[in-house]
């Protein structure tokens, strides 16, 4: 699936998107996998309360299942308007 990063999550991980092959069942499982890769991922995902997630461009939570998902995005709380 495609994994996207925005704002300081993008800056901390160092790229805006990447292709990830995973069998993670939920968003949380994916976060655990990514955090185990490298320090920059662990740093970005250190405090999940400071992060939001969208699966296939819909806001959801970290318990959300990933079955069939094509795109997961991680970002800080939004500051539009």
């Amino acid at each position, binding site marked *: 699936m495609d994994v996207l990063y925005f*704002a300081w999550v993008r800056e901390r991980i160092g790229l805006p998107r990447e292709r990830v092959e995973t069998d993670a069942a939920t968003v949380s499982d994916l976060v655990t996998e990514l955090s185990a890769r490298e320090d920059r991922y662990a740093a970005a995902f250190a405090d999940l309360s400071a992060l939001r997630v969208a699966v296939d461009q819909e*806001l959801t939570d970290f318990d959300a299942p990933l079955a069939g998902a094509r795109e997961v995005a991680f970002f800080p709380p*939004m500051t539009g308007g």
Partner: protein
Amino acid sequence: MRVVVQEAPFDFGAEAEAFASARTDMGAVVTFTGVVRDLAGDRLDAMEIEHYPGMTQKALEAIADEAIRRWSLGDALVIHRFGRLTPGERIMMVATAAPHRKDAFEAAEFLMDYLKSRAPFWKKEHGTDSAGWVAAKDEDEAALDRW
């Protein structure tokens, strides 16, 4: 309903006029526009607005649809910019048209509260010496409880 996400500036006066002219069966039109504040002595050079291209348009349309449904609006307009804006530039606008003023005001405030905290935009302030992401405010999240 019209929802526009663009990098270019928009013409607030012309948009407000066109919106108000389109539905003369509506007695009340409310507009809001948000500006990158140009403060004397401020060290802000630019406001960079990042967004999530695939999701932004859909998220804004869902918010506008919800406002139209809940307040039986005659029409709603949302324009939101992304990219690099300088102080004094307008970031976004919303407009609502309803038979009566209470609905037009409430729907515009609802749109703004949801745009602030549920539309995928992130603001970064670029100062003379430093840059930093604007933190979400607890009061903006709390504002959603009203609806």
